[in-house]
């Protein structure tokens, strides 16, 4: 019994079919609890007023935007090293979710920045890095869409993901060097002093759990779709041959 067994599409379909509804329900629950708690039952911040409520969307989305890319990096590596098709398809399935998360982080950030910093957009390192991350996602998706042969597409996009990760990291530091930021430091920290206050922290944890679970649910659903699409294609090809 090992994780690699699920590289077999049949086993993956069987397991994911059972897990998917559970994860979907859990994610819905967490999101509803976290967002309702955050929106209706938390006090305003003494400086930021009610805009602090945006944190329940902004932070989890930003967190996921980066982690989705990391997950794509891992699955790309698995594809390159062990050539498991499910892994390559999972990377493909994850990219649009990453785009949406990045967009949410950027948009809520802009809406939050408007009253707080007096501007929708500033060329702040964090904002700029996210914009660059967004461009990387777009390029990745476009490359998948442009190549017809499945295995070549998986190979090329995996290598792009690896190279892109290195350059995304370089850009992150380059951008830091280039401009000092308006953005505050990390909102979450293991260091109790630096962390956000508990009133905001507890619902935020629910929201983060909700976003993570939502990502897993969507990822499973979309990977299943990709597997089905590929099976349909190969069956059709076989039909034409017969």
């Amino acid at each position, binding site marked *: 019994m090992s994780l690699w067994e699920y590289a077999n599409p049949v086993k993956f379909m069987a397991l994911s079919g059972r897990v998917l509804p559970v994860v979907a329900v859990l994610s819905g629950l967490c999101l509803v609890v976290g967002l309702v708690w955050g929106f209706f039952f938390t006090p305003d911040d003494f400086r930021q007023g009610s805009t602090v409520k945006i944190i329940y969307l902004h932070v989890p989305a930003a967190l996921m935007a980066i982690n989705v890319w990391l997950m794509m990096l891992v699955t790309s590596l698995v594809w390159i090293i062990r050539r498991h098709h499910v892994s390559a398809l999972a990377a493909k399935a994850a990219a649009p979710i990453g785009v949406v998360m990045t967009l949410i982080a950027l948009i809520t950030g802009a809406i939050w920045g408007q009253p707080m910093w007096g501007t929708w957009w500033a060329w702040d390192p964090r904002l700029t890095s996210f914009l660059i991350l967004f461009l990387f996602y777009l390029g990745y998706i476009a490359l998948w869409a442009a190549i017809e042969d499945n295995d070549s597409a998986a190979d090329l996009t995996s290598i792009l993901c690896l190279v892109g990760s290195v*350059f995304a990291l370089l850009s992150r530091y380059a951008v830091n060097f280039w401009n000092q930021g308006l953005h505050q430091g990390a909102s979450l920290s293991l260091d109790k002093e630096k962390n956000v206050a508990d009133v905001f922290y507890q619902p935020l944890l629910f929201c983060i759990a909700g976003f993570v679970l939502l990502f897993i649910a969507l990822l499973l659903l979309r990977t299943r779709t990709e597997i089905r699409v590929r099976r349909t294609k190969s069956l059709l090809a076989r039909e034409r041959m017969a």
Partner: protein
Amino acid sequence: MKALLIRDLQLAMRAGGGFGLGLAFFLIVTALVPFGVGPQSALLSTIAPGILWLGALLACLLSLDRILALDWEDGTLDLLACAPLPMEATVSIKAFAHWLTTGLPLVIAAPLFGLLLNLPSAGYIPLVLSLLLGTPALSVIGTFGAALTVGIKRGGLLLSLLVLPLYVPTLIYGAEAARRGAEGLSSTTPLMMLAGITFGTIALLPFASAAVLRVNIR
């Protein structure tokens, strides 16, 4: 190896202007900027380093699909894949030839175009230095992009979409070095970072380009 380099250079010289085209494009971009932002020389001289860097980058981008597309179409790449030369070397030479035919002319022409944009006199040396250090990275990264998209019909736009985000670190350090130089500040730190990026990409990226090209030729 030398034969391949010479062949690529000759082709670039001969094949109807691939050589001068990048330069002409660079000139046009620099000439259009004053039309866009107005002719005030104070404004132009503050934005000159950035514009020159951006112009060089775009001129470089414009010629990327020529690196591999022609060889792909007439089957030269398949032959090169069978040749005893490892693919990594082929790719590096192609990038080097691209740099010699587009990057180097841009570096040489940049001071002239700096005159057009009223670049402060302190800025010329840092500008040329930063371009000299930075354009090889542009060629190497561009070769990677060209290798990725070589099998795709009408891949030009996709090539730009893939390559431009990869150009971000080079552009930031390069333009920053040129800008600091123009303002009379020390530009050593960005130049060092730029050199790091350039040498890093030259050392590592040909492996990725070669891997990608092998997938495309398969």
